[in-house]
């Protein structure tokens, strides 16, 4: 029964093949197969998610794959976003001769992201990372622009560069320990651990979009990809890569000051740089932000979200580094672990939902306004009257405002008495800049005047509104609960803390309480 926990990845891989075969006969049947696969994978995953947090399920193992509470938690996010994205794709992606490849790669890509979080073997994680790079790079080109080919090339080049660094680390680790398991890192000396951690952070940091290499590939590849792929890349893949960083470096970060400081420095720098880039892009465009592969400079709406992703992954890295710093400055091991790793998990959900909502809505706005450049967008207020309200939910959540999912990050990083003042200031500045960038996009797209009239014949299918609305609804529900729990109107008892402890422990260990 417990081995069923591995089913979501298998179901999606099988569905990729089956849907391609049935798609030759009927598009509806293909869509039904894909939807049923995602729905069943989510059902199974949710069951194991609930039972793992309740303590009834520890882990399942098959070969080098290991599924436990933390990996199920991230798989849940990947599956939900994948499902929303595929619903969106049915209307967004034109049916053409090569559409079969889009859905095949889409499902393989989702399955590989689940694979990336389902192992403690560094080589297995690396292999799934490579497969996810290849599948997503081809998916980027489905925008069918010349610039998207350039973006895919840059993405692949940086991925291979990152892969070579990781492979270097793997060989070095194997030479030292004769094992590929992450648990064997703990027996190494300080100098070896520092070298390995730097290599792994650099390699996986490229994929996660962290400084210094993230901006080279992330804005072009994300912004050139079709909206559902941009959503998976921004809201799922970078978080999965960040989770891998947590899994690989977690146990050393909590005891090793060098690794903790490295994570913290990279995280804070990425936060500030990413949000500032997003603001400059929203106000002035690619002429000043650079990292653009298109034929002319633009103020790309999707580029704003891409830069913002760098900033949000910075939060996750900061959380991870903070765990180690706090553990060495008077916090208890468990308390620091829950704050750092539990906080990182919550922020992954906050960013995943907020970014997917902003992207799904942006796709509708682009279809309706026939423009991806903010210089050409505007006047959508009358045509997308409900979206002008729902759009702000994601913006406010990235601004960490109370009432949204972002409140938990605000609570942990700003209102927690143990957090150093410098970190609080950087968090407040980043949240403020992100909020201004998001609201600038909102104001420009909905309320600024445009010189042209809209084409009244243009309409957007309802299935393209639905994913954004669902993500916004989830953010409001969770945000309201977390806010009320914070101010003391509702009590979760020890439930939330216990769940976060299990998630934090199973990020770095097979089983909680070991």
């Amino acid at each position: 029964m417990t081995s069923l926990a591995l089913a979501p990845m298998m179901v999606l891989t099988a569905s990729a093949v089956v849907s391609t075969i049935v798609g030759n006969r009927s598009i509806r049947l293909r869509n039904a197969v894909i939807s049923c696969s995602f729905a069943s994978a989510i059902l199974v995953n949710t069951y194991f998610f609930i039972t793992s947090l309740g303590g009834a399920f520890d882990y399942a193992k098959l070969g080098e794959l290991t599924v436990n509470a933390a990996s199920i938690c991230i798989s849940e996010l990947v599956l939900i976003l994948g499902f929303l994205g595929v619903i969106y794709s049915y209307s967004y992606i034109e049916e053409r001769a090569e559409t079969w490849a889009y859905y095949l790669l889409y499902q393989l890509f989702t399955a590989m992201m689940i694979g990336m979080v389902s192992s403690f073997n560094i080589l297995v994680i690396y292999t799934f990372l490579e497969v996810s790079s290849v599948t997503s790079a081809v998916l980027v080109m489905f925008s069918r622009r010349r610039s998207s080919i350039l973006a895919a090339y840059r993405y692949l080049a940086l991925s291979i560069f990152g892969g070579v660094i990781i492979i270097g680390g793997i060989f070095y680790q194997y030479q030292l320990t004769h094992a590929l398991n992450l648990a064997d890192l703990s027996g190494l000396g300080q100098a070896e651990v520092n070298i390995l951690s730097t290599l792994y952070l650099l390699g996986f940091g490229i994929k996660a979009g962290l400084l210094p290499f993230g901006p080279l590939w992330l804005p072009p590849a994300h912004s050139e990809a079709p909206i559902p792929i941009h959503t998976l890349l921004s809201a799922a893949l970078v978080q999965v890569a960040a989770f891998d960083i947590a899994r690989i470096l977690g146990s050393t970060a909590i005891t090793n000051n060098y690794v903790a400081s490295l994570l913290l420095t990279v995280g804070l720098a990425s936060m500030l740089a990413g949000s500032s880039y997003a603001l400059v892009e929203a106000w002035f465009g690619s002429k000043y932000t650079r990292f653009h592969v298109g034929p002319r400079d633009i103020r790309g709406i999707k580029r704003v979200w891409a830069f913002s992703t760098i900033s949000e992954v910075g939060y996750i890295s900061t959380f991870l580094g903070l765990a180690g710093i706090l553990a060495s400055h008077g916090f208890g091991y468990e308390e620091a672990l829950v704050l750092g790793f539990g906080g990182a998990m919550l922020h992954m959900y906050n960013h995943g939902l907020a970014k997917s909502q902003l992207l799904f809505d942006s796709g509708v706005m682009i279809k309706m306004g026939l423009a991806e450049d903010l210089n050409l967008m505007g006047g959508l207020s009358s045509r997308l009257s409900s979206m002008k309200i729902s759009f702000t939910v994601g913006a406010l959540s990235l601004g960490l405002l109370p009432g949204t999912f972002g409140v938990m990050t605000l609570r942990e990083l700003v209102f927690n008495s143990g957090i150093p003042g410098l970190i609080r200031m950087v968090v407040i500045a980043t949240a403020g800049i992100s909020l201004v960038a998001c609201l600038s996009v909102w104001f420009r797209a909905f309320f600024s005047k445009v010189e042209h009239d809209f084409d009244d014949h243009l309409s957007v299918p309802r299935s393209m509104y639905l994913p954004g609305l669902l993500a916004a609804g989830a953010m409001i529900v969770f945000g309201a609960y977390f806010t009320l729990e914070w101010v003391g109107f509702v009590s979760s008892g020890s439930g939330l803390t216990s769940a976060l402890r299990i998630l934090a422990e199973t990020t770095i260990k097979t089983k909680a309480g070991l």
Partner: protein
Amino acid sequence: MSTRRFPLGFALTLLTGGSVGIAIARTPVEVFLCAELVTISAFYIFFTVIIPALRPLTVDTEGIFLGGVAKSPYVSPSELFSPGIPLISEDLDKTWELYYDRNKFRPKPREVSKKR
């Protein structure tokens, strides 16, 4: 499978073989073998993408071919210098350029709708 789809099919076969293999691998040697398969496909796709990505935007066919052979019916410039999207084997969608260009933006709304 048609020859047009062969590159993508080949890459996907390598990828799927490697990723399924790694899920059931028992020994480090098997794990390395699967990792190698996936790495090869990553390199293969990288080199398949790099060539069309780096090709020049415009090519003066007359400057290369002498004697007027770079004209129909002998050869068409689009045939020579537009390799299409790597692996997907479709043509580039010029309509998307409208989404970026103020000068080309909304030439005729109905025309745009039809193209989309």
